[in-house]
């Protein structure tokens, strides 16, 4: 599918927000992703492969927003796209986060975002607020330093509480976002139910799985993997499945129940 760039702006540091208008209207749920390739560069095969990006937000006028960090060749080229440039994309792809939780469960919703892993979490927070208005929604957001904390003001408007953590201590708790989560979970009763939604680097997800293992907590992790196609053809985006074998992040995910993933790879 084709889309046109509405804007592609540096928010701060190496973080950008891309807004595109698809040629036909798109419906998507939080946690789904797009495979994106800027049209102008395709003849040069730079980059050769499209890149996966989670959908940051769908705007009311039908635009798609992508929040991304420039980390390599693909994102550097994407950052060079200007207004009205054409983008080829596939999507929305993947399963997305489940947002209709068991009715009447007393648990809270805990959303954990590490670095650019916050990209799908604003839309997720909005969706959960709409589907479970009676529940408390606590967002934990972590980054290396203050510049790595995105969407903080927007999250504060919709979440019950936003807890921030930076490794250099420049904002919020000094340390990893998983330490903030651990601290929060320990001060409540271990019997209390909760649902944790997380997106971020694999070591963060692995640590969350360890922390919640003895507790009465459901986990939904959005995983990231290098992928060539996004639709199950290349089989490149394998992650280890607990008990043997592999999942494909594009087709079986990108959202998985935490206990089904073997992070020791």
């Amino acid at each position: 599918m084709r889309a046109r760039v509405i804007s592609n702006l540096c928010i701060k540091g190496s973080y950008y927000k891309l807004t595109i208008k698809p040629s036909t209207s798109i419906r998507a749920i939080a946690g789904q992703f797009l495979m994106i390739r800027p049209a102008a560069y395709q003849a040069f095969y730079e980059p050769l492969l499209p890149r996966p990006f989670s959908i940051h937000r769908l705007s009311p006028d039908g635009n798609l927003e992508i929040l991304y960090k420039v980390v390599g060749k693909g994102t550097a080229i994407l950052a060079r796209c200007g207004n009205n440039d054409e983008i080829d994309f596939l999507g929305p792809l993947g399963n997305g986060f489940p947002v209709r939780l068991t009715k009447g469960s007393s648990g809270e919703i805990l959303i954990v975002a590490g670095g650019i892993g916050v990209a799908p979490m604003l839309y997720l927070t909005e969706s959960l607020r709409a589907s479970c208005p009676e529940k408390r929604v606590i967002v934990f957001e972590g980054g290396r330093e203050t510049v790595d904390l995105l969407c903080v003001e927007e999250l504060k408007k919709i979440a019950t509480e936003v807890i921030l953590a930076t490794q250099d201590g420049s904002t919020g708790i000094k340390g990893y976002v998983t330490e903030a989560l651990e601290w929060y979970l320990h001060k409540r009763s271990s019997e209390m139910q909760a649902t944790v939604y997380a997106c971020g680097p694999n070591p963060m997800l692995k640590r969350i799985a360890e922390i919640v293992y003895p507790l009465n907590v459901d986990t939904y992790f959005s995983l990231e993997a290098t992928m060539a196609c996004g639709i199950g053809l290349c089989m490149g985006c394998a992650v280890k499945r607990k008990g043997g074998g592999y999942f494909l992040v594009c087709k079986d995910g990108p959202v998985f129940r935490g206990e089904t993933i073997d992070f020791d790879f």
Partner: protein
Amino acid sequence: MPDLSIEIAGIKLRNPVLLASGTAGYGEDIARYCDLNRVGAIITKGIALKPTPGNPPPRICETPAGMLNAIGLPNVGVDTFIKENIPFLKKFDTRVIVNIFGATVDEYGEVAGSFTGVEGVHGLEVNISCPNIKEGGIAFGTDLEATRRVVRTVRRSTTLPVIIKLSPNVTDIIPFAMVCKDEGADAISMINTLLGMSIDTETWKPRLANITGGLSGPAIKPVAVRMVWQVYNAVDIPIIGMGGITTTGDAVEFFLAGTSAVAVGTANFLNPNVSIEIIDGLGRYLEERGIDSIRGLIGAVKI
């Protein structure tokens, strides 16, 4: 309209554009983006006797105008494939060529034999060239005598058309093509991926868990075209050409070098409908030049 139909290895194709093995799965996933009724044939992802899980991640990385992969041939096993995947493919008005591999010569024969009498299978492509699995694959495709034994065994095990997929990781590919012909293969497909490696300069680690992988994409096209041209001029056996085909022009190059059909591989990852665009493009290419059949291009390079 120019005639795009072609017969290769006794298989009648409505057009000469195929989906390459390992880039179109068993058809289900690509069918949502690409009309399988329109492609010449689909060559399915490699099938072995027993299910295999594939290699640990990372399995792929991008390289200049190409990619390295070490997927490691995950497969559902021949029984499940026949029971669950062939019925899906039978719904389409296309040709189905099943790619097979084995860990031993006998296993190649056994997998090939499993498809005897299976409705909806039109031919077998024998993978003796996968660079990413310890047993089988490239160990056969880079050794002339092993190639001979595999082709002979498969030929005796099936009456289906047999296509041998050759490895480019040899000094001279012509003797391998000759062995295939001598042992009764109906066609060859070439080339499989080129063995490659990439290292992360931050971590000093290989970018694939398998350390080495197979290079594919536009980067390998000149190597493939050269090898096709060499084999076309030396051995009388039909060739299905592949290696970096991404555009109509790429496909035309392969026909001029001597292939009777082409397969689109890595380009399916960029655009899962690209094979249809190439089919339409070939029709236009011939029409614009007043050429009435795709056969007019085969081996027509002017030297």
